[in-house]
């Protein structure tokens, strides 16, 4: 009897949302309240704290459904793709943008004149980059890396969203480079000519995925669709350098800084094609919910 009475009242008061612990950990860390607080007022990205919580939670649920997890996530024991970083760039300040969903204990530091706002982070193409403690030598197996970024840019020269190398023409790990070509391929040796002939499209969702094994093993995607694939030999070089977000780290020097807007940036190990597809769809849904899908 009481249950029948209680349930309609309960539902009538509104469904109580239950958030994933990873959603709460991230959004509490960056200080986004789950209420009607308005972020980015009077802009196209205007959104309430509650809407941000729902958007991020739906994203977390989609990742979990695809067996993708971050450090210490509730599904990390069974997930087959492990995220190292996933910067959602929510909150409009450097402090908030420095935290990421995959591992809220890791924190990026921003160098130079970055602009932080409701669209994420925007570099100036001159002195902007960020570091978060990920060094090339820290990557468990560069042959299985998955990297993605959602960017908006207008470039006529080469720029890098993420990368590292010792010198021009030497071994490099240039994850997504934009400009006259879209560069890619984790851990490739440029001297072998392993370079995608890209297109000058700088706005959208970029990703690349590399799997172990012989034959075609490296794939590059634009807005979810494959735009190139190659068989690239593994490179044993292990560069002891920080990976720069928003630039290329050339032997601890800033090279080719990005002068566009980065709305999301992520790095993972072991993504399958199905996981790429699911993750791309989740990214689009998240950025759409945030009113900023380019």
């Amino acid at each position, binding site marked *: 009897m009481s249950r029948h009475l209680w349930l309609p009242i309960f539902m009538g008061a509104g469904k109580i949302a239950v958030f994933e612990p990873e959603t709460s950990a991230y959004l509490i860390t960056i200080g986004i309240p789950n209420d009607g607080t308005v972020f980015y007022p009077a802009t196209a990205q205007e959104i309430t704290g509650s809407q941000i919580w729902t958007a991020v939670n739906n994203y977390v649920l989609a990742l979990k459904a695809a067996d993708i997890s971050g450090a210490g996530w509730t599904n990390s024991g069974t997930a087959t793709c492990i995220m190292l970083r996933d910067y959602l760039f929510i909150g409009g*300040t*450097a*402090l908030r*943008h*420095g935290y990421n969903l995959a591992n809220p204990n890791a*924190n*990026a*530091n*921003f*160098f*130079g*004149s*970055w*602009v932080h706002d409701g669209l994420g982070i925007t570099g*100036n*193409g*001159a*002195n*902007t*980059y960020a570091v978060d403690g990920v060094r090339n030598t820290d990557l468990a197996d560069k042959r299985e890396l998955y990297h993605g970024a959602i960017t908006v840019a207008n470039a006529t*020269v*080469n720029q890098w969203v993420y990368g590292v190398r010792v010198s*021009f023409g030497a071994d490099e790990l240039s994850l997504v480079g934009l400009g006259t070509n879209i560069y890619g391929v984790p851990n490739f040796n440029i001297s072998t000519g392993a370079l995608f002939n890209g297109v000058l499209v700088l706005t959208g969702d970029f990703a690349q995925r590399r799997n172990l094994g012989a034959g075609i093993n490296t794939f590059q995607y634009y807005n979810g669709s494959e735009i190139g694939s190659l068989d690239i030999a593994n490179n044993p070089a292990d560069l002891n350098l920080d990976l720069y977000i928003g630039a290329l780290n050339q032997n601890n020097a*800033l*090279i*080719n800084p990005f002068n566009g807007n980065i709305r999301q940036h992520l790095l993972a190990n072991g993504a399958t094609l199905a996981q790429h597809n699911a993750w791309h769809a989740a990214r689009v849904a998240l950025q759409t919910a945030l009113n900023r899908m380019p």
Partner: protein
Amino acid sequence: MTGYRLTTEQAELIRDKQFAPDSFFNPVPDINGDMFIFQIEWELAPRPEYDWFSTLTETIYTAPDYE
């Protein structure tokens, strides 16, 4: 684009120092080797510690040729 030209000594004085939460100065050379910072660093640098920024002149910045 424009930036604010620094002397070598000024650049080394502020390099990697924090000017806002999670934000750090990064003076870089232009094509001639002159050191520059840019708008956000100039605007957000706390005063009075960086009152001397008001003496810097906004100048055209030309990036080095990257490979």
